[in-house]
């Protein structure tokens, strides 16, 4: 099993990263060697994400489930707990389970649970609570774009040359 090396390269702008990624992908297709690629940037860049490859996003499923749960929770809260239990006696000529009034709470419940589940979905999908690689530079949050690569030891030097060719400003390495 080849040793895996991680390296983190910093670039000045998105165009250079794009070229680097394309060449790396081509090299990977021909010879393999690049195990995983992650781009770290100060702002999102949808076009480059397409070049890197598809990474499906599942946040909306969480949202949908959350919204449905919220709708149900709203209804149960009002109709099942309070009104059906007759702890609130009949009032004002309104029916025991007044649907129009329950609708308001159901609406709010939908939104509340939808929002909460979306945030949870984001945390899970973005793997925010995972332990991330220690290879990081604060310049990524400033103005430079980083490329985190995991390469096999055999292709180590080749990848490095490629990166320098595409005007990488800095390469941080980590032997593991």
């Amino acid at each position, binding site marked *: 099993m080849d040793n895996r090396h991680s390296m983190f390269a910093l670039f000045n702008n998105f165009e250079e990263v794009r070229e680097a990624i394309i060449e790396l992908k081509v090299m990977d297709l021909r010879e393999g060697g690049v195990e995983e690629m992650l781009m770290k940037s100060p702002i999102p860049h949808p076009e480059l994400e397409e070049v890197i490859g598809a990474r499906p996003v599942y946040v909306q499923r969480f949202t949908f489930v959350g919204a449905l749960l919220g709708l149900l929770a709203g209804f149960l809260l009002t109709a099942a707990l309070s009104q059906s239990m007759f702890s*609130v006696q009949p009032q*004002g000529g309104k029916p025991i389970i007044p649907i129009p009034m329950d609708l308001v709470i159901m609406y709010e419940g939908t939104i509340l649970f939808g929002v909460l589940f979306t945030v949870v979905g984001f945390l899970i999908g973005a793997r925010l609570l995972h332990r991330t690689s220690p290879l990081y530079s604060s310049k990524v949050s400033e103005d430079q774009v980083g490329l985190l690569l995991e390469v096999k030891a055999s292709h180590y030097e080749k990848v490095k040359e490629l990166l320098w060719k595409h005007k990488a400003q800095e390469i941080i390495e980590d032997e593991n």
Partner: protein
Amino acid sequence: MTIRRMIENWTAFRKSGQVGDEYYDHKDYRWGMVIDLNSCIGCNACVTACYAENNLAVVGRERFGRGLGMHWMRIERYWHTGEKGEVETRYPEQGAQYIPMMCQQCEHATCEPVCPVAATYHTPDGLNAQVYNRCIGSRYCSNNCPYKVRYFNFYSYYKNWPSPLEQQLNPDISVRDKGVMEKCTFCVQRLRRGKNEAKNEERLLRDGEVQTACQQSCPTQAISFGNLSDENSKVSKLWQKHNMSFGHKENEKQPKNERGYRALEELNTEPSVMYLERVRDEDI
């Protein structure tokens, strides 16, 4: 356990019988009142009796002027106006009209659904109940009452009663602290005692057996109170005579010589109190 309780509640509710739009069939009791404004002389005896019976707080002149009065039963005075809206001054004593106003125990009470903690609800007897213990004082019920017959304890009035006034308090009813809403209950403490005694004797209450404090003290017997479910009671007969019923609409034709009406009926609150209009010289 909760599911069992839910099922029990629903079964009991269905058994109690829903009649049309209403929750209860009011088989046994349905309290109603008739106030004859022709007999009312505005003497305020009913007001005083209500104060005595229900432990109402006397707030003092200054606070009453500010609008903090706690008079569950109040006599409202209005001046009769002529055709052009001028105040009738020829016979001023004939111009004033008195209307004793207290909680109308509305069937479709507007105050009931708006309480955030459900401190007010409708009883099977047709009364609007106020639960002092549950009230947190949001005062929405009073804002929604078109008759403004709900009174809020803005201060702890009981703290200021000079001794020995507290000796006259009625032990059958609580004394309310600040922050709690209260209103006329048709002397529910008397009704409860009467109903319990009647139940012990395995019968229903007879007409006139329980009197509200206001009815009891009225010198002209202007106030009649009784069980509308009992066809032979005085109030039942009066309601029938004046063509009044729950669900009666104001614009429905009624015989011209009948005087019965309900206050602010067009708001569809279905009050349980019928007023008999005062007969004036010009009308005869």
